[in-house]
Every structure is written in C-alpha cells, then in structure tokens.
C-alpha cells in the first residue's frame, strides 16, 4: 500500500512513470467500475471503456490542473468515455433490427415474484437515451447529489432533475410493459 498522494503520483506519471499511474488506477478504478458497467451494459465492453478512459487520462495528465483532485478529473474523463461509447454504439445499432420478439417472449414467462428481475432492469436501462441513463445512474445508483452531478457533467441542476424524472417515468413504462404482457 503506497502512501504517496495523488498529486505526487500524478507528477511522477506525468514524467512517464507508468507504474505510478497504475497505482492511481488501482486507487480509483473500483469506484468507477459500477458506473461504467451500468452505463455500457456489457461487462467486457465496460472494461475496455474504462481502460480507454485511463489511457486517455494518462495522455492528458499535463492538463490536470489540480492534481490533488485527480479523482474528480478522472471521473469526468470516464463519464465522457461512456457517453462516447454509448453514442457510437447506438449509431451502429440503428442499423440492426431489434429483436424484441425474444425479449417479449422472455417477459411473457411468469415472473418469480411479479417484480422485475435484474435483467429486466438492465434491459430497460439500456433503452433510455444516454442523457437520461447517465443522470439516472448517477443519481439513483451512485447516489450523487445534483450538485455533484452538475460538476461532473457541466449540465445545470434543473436540467439534471428533469432528466432523472423522465428516466424514472420511462423506466416505469418499460417495466410495466414487461409485466403487462
């Protein structure tokens, strides 16, 4: 366990010390993993997204103006990387015919406790647009305050509240569809 501060490690990594950056990665990756997995939906792809975000961060270390707040700076990069991934994928997936038949068939099976399963929730989450998904995960999964969310995303608190509200409404609709089939 290293006792070096973030600022010390950032300075070392900026000079090309990749091992120092690996320590920073170990320090923060667990904190961001759940967010990335929920945003991306696929665990393997999430690992790649997080790797990309960290590589990008390493390349941009010189632009980290406040190394003592490296974690917050890194989180912004992670958030942007997730958005890029989801946006690109949704562009690709527009060319793919969605196989709702299979999903509806699965949904028609009796639910164990008449409530949604994790798979149902993950499916519904994946149907939200990226803004709503991001806001919902930050607020309800990562338990952030709206002020923290605004700091991370650069979006105003009112707009974020609206996104969360719409996300909740849409999730409810999607999940009720599942159980009403």
């Amino acid at each position: 366990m290293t006792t070096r501060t973030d600022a010390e490690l950032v300075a070392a990594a900026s000079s090309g010390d990749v091992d120092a950056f690996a320590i920073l990665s170990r320090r923060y990756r667990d904190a961001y993993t759940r967010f990335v997995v929920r945003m991306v939906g696929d665990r393997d792809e999430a690992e790649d997204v997080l790797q990309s975000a960290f590589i990008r961060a390493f390349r941009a270390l010189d632009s980290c103006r406040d190394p003592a707040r490296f974690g917050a700076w890194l989180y912004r990069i992670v958030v942007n990387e997730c958005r890029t991934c989801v946006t690109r994928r949704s562009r690709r997936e527009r060319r793919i015919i969605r196989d709702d038949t299979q999903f509806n068939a699965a949904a028609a099976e009796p639910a164990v406790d008449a409530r949604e399963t994790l798979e149902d929730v993950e499916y519904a989450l994946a149907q939200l647009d990226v803004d709503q998904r991001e806001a919902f995960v930050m607020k309800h999964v990562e338990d952030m305050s709206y002020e923290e969310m605004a700091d991370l995303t650069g979006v105003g608190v009112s707009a974020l509240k609206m996104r969360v509200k719409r996300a909740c409404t849409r999730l409810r609709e999607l999940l009720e569809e599942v159980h009403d089939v």
Partner: protein
Amino acid sequence: MSDDRQLSDEAFGERVARQLRSVERFDDTFETDLVAAIRADHSVESGATAPARPLRRTWWGTPRTLHISPLAGLAMAASLAAIVSLGTLGIARSRPMTATPPTRVAAHVVHDTVNVVRFVFVGQAKTVSLVGDFNAWGAQPVALAPTGSNGTWSASVPLPSGRHEYAFIVDGQRWVADPFAPTSSDEFNTNSSIITVGS
C-alpha cells in the same frame, strides 16, 4: 405491480435502482493490461524507427510456415479473432485519413485519435504475444494475458486509425495469422493479418 402504481416515478426509480447497486469489480489484470497498453501507446508514438516487417525475425527465431489440416483449420478459425472493441479516444478533430502504409504508421500517428483494439486468441499455449507494424514487429511485443481457464488470451492495444498488419507468436516461436482477417505475405510467404481501424 399494483403497489408500484402508488409510488411516485422517482420512488419507483429508487426502488428499481437498488438492483443496480451491486458492486462491480475488475480483477488485477486490469492494471497489467493498462500498463501494457500505455507502454504500447508510447512505443507507437515514439517508434519512429519502426521498420517494415523484418526480413529476419529477431527474438522468436526463424519463421515457420503454419501447416493447417482442414480439421485444424476449422478449429483455428473458431478460435482466433481480433476484435475492434472500442471507439475512438479523441474525436475533437476530424482529419481525413488515407490508408496509411504499414511501414509509416509510427510516422503518421494522429495524436488525438487512438482506437483501442482488443486482440483475442483462443487456443492452447504457454505464452501468446502480439507483433505487428505498430510495435516494430516484435521490438516490444505485446504479451496477451490469459483471461480464463478455457485458453483465452487477450490484450488491448491502442492503435492509430489506419491499416495495420499483425500476427500472434505462440509459445515464443509459432507464427499464427488470424484466419478471419485479410492477409498479406512477405518474402518468406509468411502470412500476416490486416486490420483497419477507425472509420
């Protein structure tokens, strides 16, 4: 769901979100892969001396032609894949890219554009390395890490947009091209694979 209809949308969201709060973790190969990727990234950026595929192999010895029986060919076809797994890291500027001659990759790196490519090899091996024009054909080979007990090896490598040639080196001496990818041959009739990243 009848009870749920009494809840406000936000309360419903809160209840639903509980299922999403389970802890997610990647194992420690994350840092191993990350360090390898960053070092590979550096070698791509600074490897101005990256030569064309060498006429004489260096650390893995004399190239061997891979003879594949139809059955083995099928097995190998099922077991090898190079997957472009991620989007572009930097997209602030869009520069028109022409197909980059493989010998010039290092000299034509677009510094704000890197694609992370995940290379996956499935097969019995003690070690698997990735060589290509992006790492001077093995001057700094990228070691693939075992990712499970079923003989799956992988490595993520940042690559500039454009065309690249690559191959796997199995157990330090066996040269294996990806049967799913287009191939090119060198003077020894040794096949390598071609991947084009970026759009």
